[in-house]
């Protein structure tokens, strides 16, 4: 960094006025008997963005604190921070190399989408059952294991051959079968296995808790899901050994170049897609992100357009009222736990072609999911998805922009934690959490 003084002065300014705004604003609003639910966050954002120039009028006029105001102030803070960074380190790749910035942003979005899918399952379980599943990472691991072992089985190899033959025999009309059908089998298998394990576990261990037959349900849920996590991890290790495995990519991209000569706009090889010569996404990662987006769409359709989905949401909002309308909350609990486990399993199945897979692979993934759902707001589905994107982007920005290469990647687990700490300080319910 060429001019670290600029960067650190601006950072200290942001932190100082952010802290002043975050602490004083709720008190000013409370004294004037106004809504203080957003006061901490809004005060911190406005203070960090404008310092005393913004805070003094805010405290005098105490306007209504809308989400738009907070977002605007937040964007200003990011803008000031980025400008300070650019002035302090003009040769940094994140400042001087536009292609690099776009690539890192793309990486962040792609991995953020995948994080979001993983966290969605966890937040779905929490919103319906009120339980934080500590076995979520293990469902993720099992999804990947199921997909891997099926992918190397003779059955799957035969299936691929048949799909290829069908695609060839139909002269390309059913070419998509070759691409879509075999991987779909892997994903569906992972979904079914994790869903079934989730349903069985809920019926055996959580139903009695939800029926009020367990004395200390909070502690019971933590212990029993921890127990499940250990059991699944070591049971899998006993079955599969602790050696890492990795599935081959689900399909090869067709070779495409636009324009035909240079491929400057789009260039696809079997294992990579390059857009505008700068944005490069490896096939497995792209595939996993597409699966996550499709699954998110299906989940949203299910939750908002079907009776069962609406019933799930109803139970998450008011269990007793939902029961009065004829919804069986116990069945919804079972369904939610199964679906949550299934979403984790699906994430795992889509990522087993990206990462080496071990029985312990779910531990960091689960830890990240906990960060995401607290960041997004416990029980909030959009919050989980947005939280995933934020964590993905922050990790990409941190890894890409921190000048010291010996630290940039080593701090990956810390980036999400920093954001989480800030959000918890300013908005303890998370970005999209329900106000208490």
């Amino acid at each position, binding site marked *: 960094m060429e001019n670290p003084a600029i960067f650190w002065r601006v950072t200290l300014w942001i932190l100082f006025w952010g802290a002043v705004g975050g602490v004083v604003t709720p008190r000013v609003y409370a004294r004037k008997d106004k809504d203080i639910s957003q006061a901490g966050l809004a005060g911190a954002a406005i203070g960090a963005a404008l310092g005393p120039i913004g805070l003094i009028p805010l405290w005098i006029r105490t306007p209504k604190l809308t989400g738009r105001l907070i977002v605007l102030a937040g964007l200003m803070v990011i803008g000031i921070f980025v400008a300070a960074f650019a002035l302090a380190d003009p040769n940094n790749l994140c400042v001087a190399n536009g292609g690099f910035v776009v690539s890192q942003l793309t990486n962040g979005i792609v991995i953020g989408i995948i994080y979001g899918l993983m966290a969605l399952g966890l937040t779905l379980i929490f919103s319906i059952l009120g339980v934080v599943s500590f076995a979520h990472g293990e469902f993720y691991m099992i999804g990947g294991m199921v997909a891997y072992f099926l992918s190397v089985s003779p059955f799957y190899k035969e299936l691929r051959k048949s799909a290829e033959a069908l695609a060839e025999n139909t002269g390309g009309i059913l070419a998509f079968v070759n691409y879509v059908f075999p991987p779909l089998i892997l994903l569906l298998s992972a979904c079914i296995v994790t869903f079934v394990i989730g349903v069985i576990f809920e019926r055996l261990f959580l139903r009695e808790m939800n029926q009020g037959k367990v004395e200390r349900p909070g502690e019971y849920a933590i212990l029993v899901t921890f127990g499940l996590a250990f059991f699944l991890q070591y049971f899998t290790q006993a079955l599969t050994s602790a050696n890492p495995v990795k599935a081959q990519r689900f399909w090869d991209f067709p070779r495409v170049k636009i324009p035909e000569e240079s491929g400057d706009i789009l260039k696809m090889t079997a294992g990579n897609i390059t857009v505008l010569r700068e944005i490069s996404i490896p096939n497995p990662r792209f595939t996993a992100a597409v699966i996550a987006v499709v699954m998110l769409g299906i989940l949203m359709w299910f939750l908002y357009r079907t009776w069962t989905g609406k019933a799930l949401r109803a139970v998450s909002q008011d269990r007793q009222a939902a029961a009065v309308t004829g919804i069986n909350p116990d069945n919804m609990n079972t369904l939610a736990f199964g679906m949550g486990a299934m979403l984790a399993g699906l994430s795992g199945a889509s990522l087993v072609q990206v990462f080496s897979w071990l029985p312990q692979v779910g531990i960091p993934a689960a830890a990240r999911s906990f960060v995401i759902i607290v960041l997004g707001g416990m029980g909030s589905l959009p919050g989980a998805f947005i939280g995933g994107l934020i964590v993905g982007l922050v990790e990409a920005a941190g890894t*890409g922009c921190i000048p010291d290469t010996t630290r940039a990647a080593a701090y990956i687990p810390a980036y999400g934690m920093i954001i989480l700490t800030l959000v918890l300080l300013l908005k303890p319910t998370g970005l999209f959490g329900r106000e208490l």
Partner: protein
Amino acid sequence: MLRTRKTLWLLSLLAILILALAACAPAAEQVGEPAAEQPAQEEAAPAQEAKEEAPAEEAKPEEASMEPIKIGALAPLSAPGAVVGGEAMRDAMNIAADEINAAGGILGRPMELIIVDTEGLPEKGTAVAEKLINQDGVVAIGGGYHSSVGVAVKEVTHDNHVPIVFAEPWNDTITSVMYPEVFRIAPLNSEVSAVDVKFIIWLRDVAGADINKVVLLTENTDYGIPAAEETTRLLGEADIDAVTFSVDIGTQDFSGIIERVKAEEPDMIMVLATGEASYNFEQQAADAGIGPQDVPMLCNQVSLVSDAFWTNVPDGNYCFVRRVGLPVQLYNDVAKNFLAQYKERTGKEAAESYALEAYDSIKIIAQAIEEAGSTDADAIIEALENIEYTGALGTITFPINSKNPPDKAGVDPKWWHQFPEPAITIVQYQEEGQDSNDTTVVFPETYATGDPIIVGQE
């Protein structure tokens, strides 16, 4: 009634799960059990008969004399440790134990090898070493893979005055602290770095590769950080720029780092991250167009586990890999015999360097106890200092010791209780799916079996 049925059902399910676990866990049992099994039982049989015939009081000294001598062994058998390495070491150490017991045990007593899982974590390594010493009562410890674990465990063995022969940890400080109990047959980190850099300079100056900038991907451990620092220093002396990227052990997603590595436009990449992290990086780099087929890459030594390597890094052809120990063509009889048993036990075609080291670490302890004629720690240490053991790695001695300390010998303290001559070669995968046994030895020229294929050169 319903509750009773449900309870019964739950109990039945639990029983089935426990049975399934028990049935599926041979590997876990193998770790802790005496490796002697067949041979030990055969050897012990006459003593057993005598014991049955003799009156109870008279049997006591007999029983005591047939008490197994317990030797501990460290290996990373679960993540985030390098599991592929740990499992190879476990198999190798079990072969050593079987051989020792088949040959009559140690001091006429059977040997019991207790292998514990360090998970590649210093805190776990410390805990299992404490257990080995204070609960299991081992007289010496062998094995060990991760440097960070070695650095921590050496303190435990020193505090408890139990000799240890480290098989694979490379960190220089393990021996440079000059603890009487600590011996090592693995190479020193600084020596390995020196070989790596000599290889890179050779690639540039002799093989004609254009290498001006090297990116090092290292793990944040007592192995990775010193190795990267020493390599950077030595590369600097050869006018080669080095940029180091550090990651946590067990890192999975390298996408952000790979973009930065790409932006550095390196002429060569070195992977100083062990275990699964190395596989993840190598394949993700290949996916991003800077893999072993695009840029010369010195992959991590776990790449020598061919099956795991090709499963996890299908685009890993042309990886250079550092191998500790002689090339197969130059194996001595001990190594050939070990390889045959290793193949039979594991189905693998080649033995990894850490398997050879692990095997030797147990056998050298057994020979030291035999020569000491006692399981007393001081006697074993003295025997190790004077030992001349011919093993799979060659003839092992520890010439810098209490009688010839570093200051008297005029060498750095890192050579204390250190096997001075482990052979280090660089091999290259030159065909997809190739077994590590069949890889081409490219460096040093003395051992070379072929020329390197240098990718990415215009």
